């Protein structure tokens, strides 16, 4: 299949899977934000999600597929690229590229590690020291679980650090999607580039705000 073999085909696959995951990141952020409403907000939201039944598993499978496709091609492309460029220059001068664009594979791998931890932590809930209880309405108390976790400095720090990694990944990734899909031209590229980076900043601030406000005991 052209799409899976060709250099641009794989790039498009990575762009689309990446962008779908970005959409998930948007929805996830909106959902998480319900924590600011208090236990009622996020617990109700979680309860609603779980009531979807098999759809949850369909959704999880889709996400897994996206992650796999994105990850595998990311690794393949990176290996090919380093094979294509075996010798480095004695003087390494950067013109356009930056830390974010050069380290996509590393930020990607870190994100993968974080996702595994995050799933073990809040989905499988098998990490030690978890507060697992039901709230007054008999729903699972997500709020207490999250708040009690993030009151641990280390855990809060891991999450903030992961969000910085996510920021770096998307700093390059979001605008890259538009370039790969061929939606760039003279006028749009500078705008798309800025907007993409802005969105990455919004994610960083939005996601990090939760552990930070909990750690600062603003949200209890």
């Amino acid at each position, binding site marked *: 299949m052209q799409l899976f073999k*060709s250099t*641009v085909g794989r790039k*498009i696959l990575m762009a689309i899977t990446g962008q779908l995951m970005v959409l998930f990141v948007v929805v996830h952020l909106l959902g998480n934000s319900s924590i600011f409403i208090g236990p009622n907000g996020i617990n109700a939201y979680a309860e609603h999600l779980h009531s979807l039944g098999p759809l949850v598993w369909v959704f999880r499978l889709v996400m897994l597929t996206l992650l796999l496709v994105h990850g595998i091609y990311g690794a393949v492309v990176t290996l*090919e*690229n380093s094979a*294509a*460029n075996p010798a480095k220059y*004695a003087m390494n001068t950067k013109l356009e590229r930056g830390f974010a664009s050069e380290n996509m594979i590393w930020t990607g791998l870190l994100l993968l590690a974080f996702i595994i931890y995050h799933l073990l932590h809040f989905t499988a809930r098998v990490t030690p020291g978890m507060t697992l209880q039901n709230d007054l309405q008999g729903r699972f108390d997500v709020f207490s679980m999250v708040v009690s976790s993030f009151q641990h400095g280390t855990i809060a720090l891991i999450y903030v650090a992961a969000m910085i990694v996510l920021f770096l990944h998307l700093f390059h990734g979001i605008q890259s999607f538009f370039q790969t899909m061929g939606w760039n031209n003279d006028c749009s590229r500078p705008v798309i580039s800025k907007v993409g980076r802005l969105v990455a900043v919004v994610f960083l601030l939005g996601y990090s705000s939760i552990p930070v406000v909990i750690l600062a005991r603003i949200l209890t």
Partner: protein
Amino acid sequence: MSDHKTMTLTLIVWRQKNANDPGKFETYTAKDITEHHSFLEMLDCVNEDLINSGKEPIVFDHDCREGICGMCSQVINGVPHGGQERTTVCQLHMRKFKDGDTIYIEPWRAKAFPIQKDLVVDRTAYDTIIQSGGYTSCHTGGVPDANATLIPKEVLDYAMDAAECIGCGACAAACPNSSAMLFTSAKVAQLAVLPQGKPEAAARVQAMLNTMQECGFGNCSNHYECQAACPKGINVKFIAKLNREYLKALFK
């Protein structure tokens, strides 16, 4: 103009006897260089000194020395063509350097551009990419009148912007992935917008991309380093155009 000021520079130059030699850096001194010397003329002077002292001169590719043939190929201080905007090595002048500077001079480095000697690399891969589809299949003679098909000026200007590529290889040399995407896209984009090139657009983009891969170039990951290094200012919007053409071809 200050003709009387001269500079002395330290050059750290990549020397490699042939394709199989591992190669190493050697240090040379360039003396009595004025600000009006071109970079290559500075190297000429160093070479004359080397010959007169019984040493092998530095081998480097060059030909037209007016910035259009695309023959010259040197990475100066880590930047292909030395980093002056829209300028090839041959048009780079020593007034961009200061007395006492140390300058690193290296060949293009990419698996698809094997080094043949010193600063000379083999860029046949670029020809191979063009051979796989960078043309319109028109026959000599038997074509319509030049004005028979009108081409809007905007389209023409866009095509010309892409067509200015000199095929020097700086894009792949600058790319952290050694991708030849900017080069490939410039030809794809030029021919894709012109009515004469449209009939073969889908086959062309697929063939040229496959060849690019086969030649050992890496994948484009949108660093845009190529655009910054290109001595002709070829824009990465052409890569976006190539991607678009590729998508179109997928659904054909």
